[in-house]
């Protein structure tokens, strides 16, 4: 379970996140939607402290994330980035094994075996020895998901995972994410893919101007939005 309470974040005078609370239960998928600049990515990045919140606390399984336990807590919530951020000097296999080996102390053999299984899961077992520059965007993102899963995290954080992809590659990444959701992975997904959110999310949060405007089940948000801002936003994107 991941819980954030009273998260505030300022950037050079801009109040990007204004006191937001979220809770995601084990096995749940939370999708955060909203217009660009609404603070949804910043909120996500506050969860694993890539942005240090100015105020507020984040708890994973009831343990508060602090500077002291930050590294350990980060291994519990792996992140998938909009721009993939695969390590460009490492092969696909090394991308997946580097953190388990050096952070968790897993043996190289064990990590590689696991990595190959994960590559199979995302449909890329034949790409183990390839370097990221020789992969398509969709393949890169699937490798990035495998890299995140290799840490055996309790929660996966997705920061607009399909926004940098060519349209024809969005489906292959969403399919992998759907599979993970069905298997009971706890996920927090910042996304512009409304179809995915409607289909996969347990809960949906609509954010605007750094605040949660409306939250509820996917059905509530997409079929019966209460707030005018939510209605206007959905009218534009659906």
């Amino acid at each position, binding site marked *: 379970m991941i819980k954030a309470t009273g998260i505030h974040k300022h950037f050079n005078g801009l109040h990007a996140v204004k006191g937001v609370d979220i809770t995601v239960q084990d096995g749940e998928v939370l999708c955060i939607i909203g217009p660009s600049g609404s603070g949804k990515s910043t909120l996500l990045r506050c969860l694993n402290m890539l942005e240090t919140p100015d105020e507020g606390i984040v708890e994973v399984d009831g343990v508060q994330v602090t500077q002291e336990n930050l590294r350990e807590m980060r291994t519990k919530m792996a*992140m998938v*980035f909009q*721009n993939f951020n695969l390590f*460009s*000097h490492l092969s696909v296999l090394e991308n997946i094994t580097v953190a388990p080996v050096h952070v*968790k102390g897993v043996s190289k053999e064990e990590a590689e075996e696991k990595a190959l299984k994960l590559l199979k899961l995302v449909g890329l077992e034949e790409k183990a020895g390839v370097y990221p*520059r020789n992969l398509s965007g969709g393949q890169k993102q699937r490798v990035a998901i495998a890299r995140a899963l290799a840490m055996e995290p309790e929660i996966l954080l997705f920061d607009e995972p399909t926004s940098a992809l060519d349209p024809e590659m969005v489906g292959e990444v969403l399919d992998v994410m759907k599979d993970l959701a069905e298997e009971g992975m706890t996920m927090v997904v910042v996304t512009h893919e409304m179809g995915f959110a409607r289909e996969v999310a347990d809960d949906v949060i609509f954010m605007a101007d750094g605040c949660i405007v409306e939250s509820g089940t996917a059905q509530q948000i997409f079929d019966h939005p209460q707030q005018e801002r939510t209605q206007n936003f959905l009218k534009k994107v659906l």
Partner: protein
Amino acid sequence: MNPYLQGIIVALKGAPMTIGVSLFAVAVGALVGLCFALMKKSEKKIVQIIAKIYIEVVRGTPMIVQALIMAYGIPYLLQQSGIAFKWPHLIIPAMIVCGLNSAAYMAEVIRGGIQAVDPGQVEAAQSLGMSKRQINRLIVLPQAFKIVIPSFGNEFVTLIKETSVLSFVGVVEILRSAQLWNASSFETFPAYIGAAIVYLMLTYPLSKGVSALEKRMAKEAE
């Protein structure tokens, strides 16, 4: 023998010394330069300042002056304070000066290389729970190193030329070989032209090699 040909042959005899000192200096420069580059990134202000002062002082003074201080000034100072000190061979202060001089330039190059690494790479490493040290060692430095390899090549080319100042502190490299021959043969023009040709024989192919490498890496990066 044709004096021009002889000038080239004489200068060539100094080439191994020039190349040796330059190679040593590149290696020391890269290692020490890396230390200074990391020091400049340090969170401790005092560490940053030490690195900054070193880099400014070395870059702000001519290498010939540094070489004279190292080769003659320091032994003099030590002798004045009652320590019997003499360099066993002048090549030692020569190598130290070239290495430490190069380090100041390489520090800036390496710092640039580190800055050129995509911040997303660091974020990804952080998100996987890596420590600062692990991120540097496993992710940032290998990528920065690749970025700066051509600069190491360029620094080597520069050093081949710069080490000519060592002729003033008695190291018999290319220029000193030519000077000595000039002093005995009075073939002044062939002697110095010979030296120039030998320098060019070294620097031209190396520069070409570096640009070819840069082109190949640019292609790979696409």
